[in-house]
């Protein structure tokens, strides 16, 4: 009989990534209302709008000081209610603003909502006073309640916005009810008694006038809150999709790093072992074997360079990577760094690199700008003839942004081939004859960096005479 293993059997179930498996419609539920920071912004906005109302009421109050104007307009002389209402609203507004500033400093999570609700209650109360004095049934002033109902639909959940609508209805009904009951004196702005006095507060008038207003408000609330909920749902879906895209970008970067390792590591091992053979660590080899090994080493080097350039090309296009590292940068220093990097290659090829560098700044991702400069500079050296000269200039560019020029006197590019040199893997036959190690990706990298940084590139070339790249950078964002 077989013995029972002492190690317990373990199991593991591969979890599916929820972001991949679920359709967008099943993504997290929409927020019921706007987030607190956005509500806080709107607290301040409401207060600004309220100053307009305060000013309008004060102006209306001032008009009361000139009875002839009111008579000319057919309005009744009004008492001091516009001033009083304006003053109350102004004082409340100062309080709301002070509270909002305190909230912004303290970062209280629920304060904005409390502030907004207080504003709404104060507004509705003030509006009810205005409605009473202007004419609750005789004028259309009661429809001013709709502003608050619609705005509540945008900022709050459906339940909360219904609360605002119900509160507006309650304030208005209380006003009309107290007028009908005779608790509040008959008011209204119209001077003509036939307009003001003819409307008796009979049950029918109240039902038709006030009731129809309430029905309109509730219908408006229903449509506005429904549409606002739909917009918020859409907003949440977009937010979730955006988060998944950001996560995918991060995963892509991680994958690129692993790819760099997994693809380059085997070449490193081959390269190292070829080196052992070529440098006599394993004894003397026949000439044919040495030639073959040199070819293997060369291909390894080219493939490793190609993998690196493919990764660079992919990485430039990662917006997450780009956005997080965008900054003002010293262009002169970047050119100087590229010159130092290319110097060993220049010495190997007996090319003299001359430079004239003035102070210049631009904005961008430092690594990417250096990548562009180093690619162009390496090309200038590689495609120069032995003993040739390369001239590099960096000028601040008098108001139009810095200009960098890289000029060689090398093999040049035939005019019909110039438009294609920035294509991926495109190499002119002349370039291949001159340098078999070219990957055809260097200028594609230059093009991508130029596109993402808005760098204008002009190429002037003549076959057999040389090539000049003129780069127009944007000014640093911080500079004038």
């Amino acid at each position: 009989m077989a013995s029972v293993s002492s190690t317990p059997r373990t199991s593991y179930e591969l979890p599916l990534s929820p972001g991949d498996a679920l359709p967008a419609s099943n993504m997290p539920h929409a927020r019921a209302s706007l987030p607190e920071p956005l509500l806080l912004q709107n607290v301040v906005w409401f207060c600004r709008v309220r100053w307009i109302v305060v000013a309008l009421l004060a102006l209306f109050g001032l008009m009361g000081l000139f009875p002839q104007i009111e008579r000319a307009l057919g309005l009744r002389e009004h008492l001091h209610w516009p001033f009083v209402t304006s003053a109350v609203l102004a004082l409340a507004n100062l309080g709301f603003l002070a509270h909002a500033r305190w909230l912004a400093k303290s970062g209280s999570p629920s304060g904005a909502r409390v502030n907004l609700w207080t504003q709404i209650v104060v507004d509705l109360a003030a509006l009810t006073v205005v409605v009473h004095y202007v004419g609750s049934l005789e004028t259309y002033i009661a429809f001013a309640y709709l502003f608050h109902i619609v705005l509540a639909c945008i900022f709050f959940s459906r339940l909360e916005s219904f609360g605002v609508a119900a509160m507006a209805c309650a304030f208005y009904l209380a006003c009309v009810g107290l007028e009908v009951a005779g608790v509040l004196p008959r008011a209204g702005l119209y001077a003509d008694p036939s307009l003001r006095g003819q409307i008796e507060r009979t049950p029918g008038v109240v039902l038709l006038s006030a009731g129809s207003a309430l029905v309109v408000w509730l219908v408006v609330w229903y449509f506005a809150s429904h549409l606002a909920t739909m917009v918020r749902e859409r907003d949440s879906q977009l937010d979730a999709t955006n988060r998944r895209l950001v996560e995918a970008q991060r995963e892509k970067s991680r994958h690129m790093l692993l790819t760099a390792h997994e693809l380059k590591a085997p070449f490193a091992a081959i390269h190292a072992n070829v080196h052992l053979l070529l440098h006599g660590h394993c004894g003397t080899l026949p000439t044919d074997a040495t030639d073959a090994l040199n070819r293997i080493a060369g291909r390894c080097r080219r493939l490793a360079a190609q993998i690196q350039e493919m990764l660079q090309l992919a990485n430039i296009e990662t917006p997450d990577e780009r956005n997080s590292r965008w900054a003002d940068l010293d262009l002169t220093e970047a050119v100087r760094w590229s010159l130092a990097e290319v110097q060993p290659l220049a010495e190997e090829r007996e090319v003299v690199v001359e430079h004239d560098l003035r102070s210049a700044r631009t904005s961008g991702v430092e690594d990417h700008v250096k990548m562009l400069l180093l690619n162009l500079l390496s090309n200038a050296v590689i495609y120069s003839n032995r003993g040739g000269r390369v001239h590099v200039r960096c000028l601040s560019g008098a108001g139009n942004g810095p200009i960098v020029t890289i000029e060689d006197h090398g093999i040049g590019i035939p005019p019909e081939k110039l438009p294609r040199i920035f294509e991926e893997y495109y190499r002119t036959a002349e370039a291949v004859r001159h340098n078999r190690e070219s990957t055809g990706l260097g200028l594609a990298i230059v093009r991508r960096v130029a596109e993402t940084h808005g760098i204008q590139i002009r190429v002037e070339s003549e076959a057999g005479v040389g090539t000049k790249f003129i780069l127009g950078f944007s000014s640093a964002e911080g500079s004038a």
Partner: protein
Amino acid sequence: MAYILIVDDDEDLAQAFAKVLKDARHEVAIEGETARALERMNRKAPDLVILDVMFPENSSAGFELARDMRKGHGKLGDIPILMLTAVNSKFPTGFSARDIDADWLPVTDFVEKPVDLDVLVNKVSALLQRVASAGDRSKNAK
């Protein structure tokens, strides 16, 4: 002659490094896992460690071993570390010798794969020389 420990899961590469370093008259040992490398170092401290960054089970195991050596294990704290990386050290995803920071990444120098074996031998010699000079200075100071 120095005792050099190569910590790399790529045996083909490690063997090639070992060969040239042995030819340069150094004693060389190879470990393919960082945990076992730490055990080996605690048994016998090397004069220099050549350390890869990425290992099959942990893509930053090399960094972690370097930090462990510097922070958690006193007698390993001063051993020079030459870090190998397959990721380009200039841009855009990587780091360079300029990024060497004793707290974040406590290594002494970098070499980028594919490594030129002559460069490797020269770097190893330079690092060992630097350690020897520092040792002489501290002796003289006493």
